């Protein structure tokens, strides 16, 4: 048996997505910029995808820019805004545990002479509103806060945070990295005070290398790629039609019967937490009461006396796939930033796994994983370093 519980790393592409991608590669393969019919046909896929993406956010298609994924969307949002606003101010704020694709561009901007502040989070992974407000200055141009944290599943009250920031300085633009939130929540940027929002396709059963940035109408940012002027000059380069078409399909599918999908995931989450709680020496991190206060698809748990990487590989041998920290940072071993940020005990930092679900996850996968954990933990604990 297999249990794929690493859906926050990536998800399986849906059949519908695969079909439309195949069609755009084999049949409707034109370049959307071509003036002939083949180009028109390809362009239609882009238009459809933009409409789907816009509809999901109750926004307009012209507010969507397709990118190569979440990383590019974040880079475009941060660097593009900083460049466009640099005469107004050079101060940017982000949360302490942002994803590397937010963190690294900010460090780059710091090198370029911008001023960056990181706002701390509490033990639940929530940004402290008063601390955030105290950081906002007259020259602050952008606040970027992750909607759902990728390692522990903490959810920010984005509407409240944005409102507070804008109350103190109405000129500030608000960006949210919603890579882990999109498809799990119905996000309404205009109502929540979000000016820029990053989305990735492969977390919602779309293809890797797809994503988009929502840019509220009226917000001016500079491009970070220059060339043929596609996508209103904001993102030059021939559009990746198969990826964009696949993304559009994934967007439509993920929001079909959305409420029932999400309540099912919360059911899975509660089930796993229950099974984990029954095992000795296991703590589940950053869960809120009620459970709907945190993301439906991510469970972070620490296993006393076991190194996460060893446990991960032992589970892998039995067909259970999970993540230590987050897959994106696992290439550079080191201790997870999010876990440290929520103040997790030092000895548990390297003993923590992330389990994450998708709409395809079944309860028997969770039971299977829990069963394997129950068998493996006592064995592995016998062989810890003495």
């Amino acid at each position, binding site marked *: 048996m297999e249990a794929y519980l690493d859906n926050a790393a990536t998800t399986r592409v849906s059949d519908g997505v695969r079909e439309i991608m195949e069609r755009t590669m084999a049949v409707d393969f034109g370049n959307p910029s071509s003036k002939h019919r083949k180009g028109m046909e390809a362009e239609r896929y882009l238009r459809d995808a933009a409409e789907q993406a816009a509809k999901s956010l109750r926004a307009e298609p012209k507010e969507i820019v397709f990118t190569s994924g979440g990383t590019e969307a974040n880079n475009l949002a941060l660097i593009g805004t900083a460049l466009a606003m640099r005469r107004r101010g050079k101060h940017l704020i982000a949360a302490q545990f942002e994803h590397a694709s937010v963190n690294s561009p900010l460090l780059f901007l710091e090198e370029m002479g911008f001023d960056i502040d990181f706002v701390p989070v509490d033990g639940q992974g929530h940004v402290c509103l008063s601390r955030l407000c105290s950081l906002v200055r007259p020259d602050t141009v952008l606040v970027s806060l992750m909607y759902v944290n990728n390692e522990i599943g903490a959810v920010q009250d984005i509407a409240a945070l944005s409102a507070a920031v804008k109350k103190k300085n109405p000129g500030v633009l608000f960006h949210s990295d919603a890579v882990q939130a999109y498809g799990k929540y119905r996000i309404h940027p205009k109502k929540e005070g979000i000016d820029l929002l990053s989305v990735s396709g492969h977390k919602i059963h779309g293809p890797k290398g797809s994503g988009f940035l929502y840019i509220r109408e009226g917000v001016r940012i500079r491009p970070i790629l220059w060339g043929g002027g596609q996508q209103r000059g904001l993102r030059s380069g021939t559009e990746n039609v198969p990826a964009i078409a696949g993304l559009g399909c994934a967007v439509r599918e993920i929001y079909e019967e959305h409420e029932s999908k999400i309540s099912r995931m919360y059911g899975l989450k509660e089930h796993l937490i229950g099974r984990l709680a029954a095992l000795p020496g296991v703590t589940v991190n950053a869960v809120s009461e009620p459970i709907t206060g945190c993301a439906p698809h991510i469970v972070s748990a620490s296993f006393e006396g076991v190194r996460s990487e060893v446990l991960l590989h032992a589970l892998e*041998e039995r067909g259970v796939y999970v993540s230590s920290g987050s897959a994106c940072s696992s290439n550079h*071993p080191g201790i997870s930033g999010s876990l440290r940020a929520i103040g997790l005990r030092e000895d548990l930092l390297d003993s923590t796994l992330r389990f994450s679900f998708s709409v395809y996850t079944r309860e028997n996968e969770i039971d299977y994983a829990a069963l394997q954990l129950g068998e493996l933990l006592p064995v592995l604990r016998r062989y810890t370093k003495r």
Partner: protein
Amino acid sequence: MYRAFLIKYAEIGLKGKNRYIFENALRDRVQAALDRIGRYHVVREQGRIFVECPEDSDYDETVEALQKVFGVSGICPVVVIDSMEWDDITGGVGAYVEEFYEEQNFTFKVEAKRASKQYPMTSPEICAEMGAYLLGRFPALRVDVHHPEVSIHVELRTKTYVYSKTIPGPCGMPVGTGGKAMLLLSGGIDSPVAGYMIAKRGVAVEATYFHAPPYTSERAKQKVVDLARIISDYTGPIRLHVVNFTDIQLSIYENCPHEELTIIMRRYMMRIAEHFAKKSDCLALVTGESIGQVASQTLQSLLATNAVCGLPVFRPLIGFDKQEIVTIAKKLKTFETSIEPYEDCCTIFVAKHPVTKPVLADIEKSEQLLAEKIDGLMETAIQTAELIRVG
């Protein structure tokens, strides 16, 4: 403009009646190295090896490949003049001197050879006429037949070949002429370098790697395959035995004193490696150990590890400092891969204070604690080993 290379070799020249074995081996190694990058023609003739390049060959790529063939002491780029007419030959050599020397003000001599004795000029005549021509064309040149700065070689066969420069090769002996040895390959910095060093002396290499899933990951194994792939540029194809060492390691951990874990573990690694070595007709084991680098590499530890082996154990890095090893690893381009941060089975279960001066008798006594069960575990480890062909 270069269309051929002349390969020089040094040490092979010392060999007696079996010299041809070394020369043939070198020819084969050169051909194999070049087969990877194109259709080269390599021939052994009159006490040397000659490489003819295909039309589309790249000079740098060819030289780089040749510099990885042990036994090659020098690589001479050769210009080919498609003619046997004397005027074409002098003109061609003149053009060669013009193009490949920035200033034509050195001392030189011409060395000529003619393959066909039917050619109307003798070799000394060719030297003299060519020298005169060059002196006429480049007034700043001077002849010095005893200690010339540049020796211009002109060889007349069915075409004319000109060369004067020598790029150093890696030296050593052609791989395979010195038998075969089993390398204990880990993901670290040292063992790939040890494999390179032993191959340099003409020894073909097989390798054994020990992994300990789930304590070590698939990626750690991939890293070792990658390392074997890099050194196979020098050693030729490597048969890599991947042994699952987990149960043996856990058994040692459960039964033996913890400060002796590493020594006992290494003794079992040696035993298993030796098993594969004998099966593959290897005549020695090779490790990357260097005296005193870690607890298991003191003389006392090496003695204790060595005691289980019947085959000789060669440690080409024994007198090297870490920095010296790193320098070679960087040159080989194994360093970047070696420092990828995936744990190997030596780094888990390490005791806080491992014994640095083990007494052989004590270690042997500790191993008794493993009882008969260890034989079955060894057997399983050997039976389940995976063979990967690299390079």
